[in-house]
């Protein structure tokens, strides 16, 4: 598996760190306990095409949104996702 970074070109997997599914959105302050529980703990865990966040720590240090098939590891698109990591963890 190699990822084509939009800034650096095709790079080997070891340069990237995985954050996870890009679909869950951090709930707003004051959200219900159910919404927070769902966000923190429950996952669709898709078998097939899914979008997820990767961090190019060994290269340009950009956050990327990668569309990848979990059954085949085939990557169909990679786009820049500035700030995705911070938005995910609420930093």
């Amino acid at each position, binding site marked *: 598996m190699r990822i084509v970074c939009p800034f650096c070109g095709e790079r080997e997997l070891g340069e990237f760190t995985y954050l996870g599914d890009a679909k869950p959105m951090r709930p707003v302050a004051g959200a219900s306990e159910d919404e927070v529980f769902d966000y923190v703990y429950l996952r669709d*865990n898709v078998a097939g095409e899914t979008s997820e966040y990767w961090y190019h720590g060994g290269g340009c240090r950009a956050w990327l949104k990668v569309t990848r098939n979990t059954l085949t590891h085939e990557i169909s698109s990679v786009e820049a996702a500035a700030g995705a990591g911070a938005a995910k963890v609420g930093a």
Partner: protein
Amino acid sequence: MKYSIFSLARAALSGHKNWQRTWRDATPKDRYDVVIIGGGGHGLATAWFLASEYGIKNVAVLEKGWIGSGNAGRNTTIIRSNYGLPGNTGFYELSMKLWERMEQDLNYNTMVSQRGVINLYHSDAQRDAYARRGNTMRINGIDAELLDLAAVRKMIPFLNFDNARFPVQGGLLQRRGGTARHDAVVWGYAHAASALGVDIIQNCEVTGFVRDANGKVTGVETSRGKIGGGKVGMAVAGSSSRVAAMAGLRLPIESHVLQAFVSEAIKPLIPGVMTFGAGHFYVSQSDKGGLVFGGDIDGYNSYAQRGNMPVMEDVCEGGMALMPMIGRVRLLRQWGGIMDMSMDGSPIIDKTPVDGLYINAGWCYGGFKATPGSGFVFAHLLARDTPHEEAVRFRLDRFRRGAMIDEKGQGAQPNLH
């Protein structure tokens, strides 16, 4: 048939032409008291304990592929009970005690070999952490010995003790730990369960659940037709989210790929199971002579049953740091299995919110050693509708309650457990 020295002699004298099948390859009936989805170690163990301990013999085990085709044949065969947190400590020791009597229970040679598991430490801080873990084990009646450098040198003299960054300082040893023959474990459970009347149905993929007007699960739709079940238990670690989704459930689980490796066969070298404490590398030597080893999961969601190069490199670097002389041993095989990585790194054994559906999932990459214990407590739950006392902490709702069992203290990030 019953295996013994006499059956072996009889078969040998007749040219090994009269061995019978180890278990019946059953065709599905219309209805069973309990239907278990997944013919891996955990599913088959559950069926055997249902039949032998709880008197429920009208049981089917449904397997999508063939027996031994999934994670039962993809692990590194290690058994141990060196866990540190309430919930895990007692459960894995229950499992270890069942390993110790498995061959007699099943009348099957599962090659359980208590050759010892040693976790090496490389710093004063790590020694203290291992001492605490060893104390936790001993307080709970589990064997553990903290070895100093001299004792480890005597036991495993060929290690790279003077590694400049990660010198070996000692180790925590569980002598009762070791290995078992993974294929024989599933064959043994299939053999013993089948003899008690359990139907083992291969090439039977579950494609949906049958529900009544109240939403209760009353059976499963499969590639071999509809099969009714008074209760349905799923033991499909790796694919739990996919099966649960058929019942409308979302789980606190991600599926990740874990690789394992075998080298070419070499003369007997490694006495037991060893782990490198400064990285993630564990190794034992099979009876055929190959070094069986592994390390971390790859770290990204996957159902592909194959991994990638960075983890392969990392695992081999761990091995080289510990034993530089294996550098000229060639890698023979490498494979991947799909793990249910749960949100706290510990398993889930519980009723689900869907009436009639029970779950056994979330084994992360520690499922093999749990096989007999998992089968025992899951059979208890299916038979009695209450959790076994050693599984009360493995409830599905513990994430909502904040009652996590997080050995590594990593939080809800499954690829870090």
